[in-house]
């Protein structure tokens, strides 16, 4: 195993990590503030990817496509919050799980009706289409570097938003005591809708950035949603910092396992079996990680209201 490959896989892990963070931040914010578990979060990811894949060619610019897609996805998110989820905040988590499970079926079918069952391809902007030589001899796709950059920028933006602004103060206050916040004259309903829209936009951004790497297809949100759950459970529910740490951890572990396990297994079994076994063991690694973390710290690494 050479160092260059490790560096490349490390960057891939970082890239997956920041994308998972974009997903996890919205999900964990909604969870932390509204005590709401939203399975349909993956649908915003899918919608973001589809909207970008539609507008980018129309506007002849990937960036403009994303800039149009994000507010639209935020609007979809806010509409969903107002129509369907608002009634569920005070319900059991089971009800929320079921209702949002229904939403997944709805959105998958809606996308299938609007865009058809075939996967769509989204190309990265031309100026990010090439590769960059990060260290001599390791060419790395520029677009993936851009994802890392955008993800880290969003992490900084969220940090500043939550710790330095009035909105952030309200968000934090809403997480600890919503009645008190309402009594102080804050429109809690509107705050929730806005946070939900923000979460949807972040998920859509993740989807838009993932579009050129993966195929844009129906159901693409589900696998990433489950990864995101692993992230926020490892990080501690409701904690944005935990989401960041969890996302980077999961991104790294998952990528490394996928890169290394088949090779390691080839040493002990025939290649054809090693590849199959290695791939499925690699898929299992993060769940094993999650089980280990929970066995050690049942509330995750950074519990929000410790």
């Amino acid at each position: 195993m050479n160092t260059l490959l490790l560096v490349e896989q490390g960057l891939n892990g970082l890239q997956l990590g920041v994308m998972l963070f974009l997903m996890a931040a919205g999900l964990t914010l909604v969870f932390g503030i509204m005590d709401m578990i939203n399975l349909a979060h993956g649908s915003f990811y899918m919608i973001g990817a589809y909207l970008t894949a539609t507008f980018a060619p129309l506007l002849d610019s990937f960036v403009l496509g994303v800039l149009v897609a994000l507010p639209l996805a935020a609007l979809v998110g806010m509409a969903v919050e107002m129509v369907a989820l608002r009634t569920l905040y005070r319900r059991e988590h089971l009800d929320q799980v079921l209702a949002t499970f229904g939403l997944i079926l709805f959105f998958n079918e809606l996308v299938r009706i609007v865009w058809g069952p075939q996967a769509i391809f989204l190309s990265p902007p031309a100026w990010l289409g090439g590769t960059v030589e990060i260290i001599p001899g390791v060419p790395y796709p520029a677009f993936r570097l851009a994802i890392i950059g955008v993800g880290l920028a969003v992490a900084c933006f969220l940090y500043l938003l939550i710790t330095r602004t009035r909105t952030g103060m309200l968000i934090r206050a809403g997480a600890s005591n919503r009645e008190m916040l309402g009594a102080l004259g804050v429109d809690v309903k509107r705050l929730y809708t806005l946070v939900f829209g923000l979460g949807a936009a972040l998920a859509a951004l993740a989807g838009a950035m993932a579009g050129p790497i993966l195929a844009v297809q129906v159901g693409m949100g589900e696998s990433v949603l489950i990864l995101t759950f692993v992230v926020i459970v490892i990080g501690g529910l409701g904690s944005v910092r935990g989401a960041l740490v969890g996302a980077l951890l999961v991104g790294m572990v998952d990528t490394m396992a996928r890169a290394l396990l088949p090779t390691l297994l080839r040493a002990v079994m025939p290649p054809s079996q090693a590849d199959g076994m290695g791939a499925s063991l690699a898929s299992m690694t993060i769940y094993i990680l999650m089980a280990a973390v929970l066995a050690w710290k049942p509330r995750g690494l950074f519990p929000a209201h410790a």
Partner: protein
Amino acid sequence: MPDFNKRETWAVLIGLAFLLALPPLADAMGKGFYVTLFTRILIFGLAAVSLDLILGYGGMVSFGHAAFVGVGAYTVGILSWHVFDASPVVTWPAVIEGTENAFVVWPLAALMGGLFALVIGAVSLRTSGISFIMITLAFAQMLFYLAIGLRKYGGEDGIALYTKSELVPAVDLFDRTTFYYVCLAILAAFLVLCRRLVGSRFGMAVRGAKVNERRMKALGFPPYRYKLTAFVISGAAAGLSGALLANAAEFVGPAYMSWQRSGELIVMVVLGGMGSLFGPVLGAAAFLLLEEWLADLTEHWQIFLGPILLFVVVFARRGIWGVIAGPDREER
């Protein structure tokens, strides 16, 4: 002694009579296809009741229940595959040949379901609330990926079974009606077992742990142990339903363990009525019939199913059984 003054008793009797009469009626009407559909309903009913045992009575929201169904199905599938392949399943420490004897594979499927539930439950029950939902989901995903990795047994494509399990030479499970009645008998037996379980000291302890775990502890009941036992019983029944499903579909694949399947099982329980024994069976019937009916209507049936689920969750809290059994259900 059943109490004939209760709506519940009548509902169960009418339901049972309907299920008993269904195959001859369907055949007489030339709609034999309904026998197959209702066999699926009975099998999913068994899985849903097993889930309700922990979900409705124990308050454990297991989002990975399909994993146990899948484990049972794969038990049947793998043993059958080896019969066809004429190779032993295991050569060490003892040689174990594949088999299609239902008296062997069905209990084995239940045993495997229970074993997996023991391991998964032992870890998952350390947590509660959302974390429990997530960790059961994660374990189910692990098994899902493991099944995909089993290249020898078809990997992503699964195993097509060439024969059904054999019960006894005289009972031909290939016969649709016979298989239907076998499934009905198994479901009825499990319901009777559950009825006794729920009313027993053990059942009371599990239900008590749902309401107030700390109080149960103070009373001297270790909730963890009781909950884990319920989890294992539930996993075993789900494994058995998986074995029946494998026989019914003559196919086993990773999709049996997909998280959507787990979600559907929860939907069946809630749709039928959580915390009741017959509700989940009704829920399974309602879900599969709705699916069938909507799929007939339009290929985009899920666009209706989703909002219907949302609607049921928001407005019909007690499910179908709550409507049938009447307002007195909460007291018992």
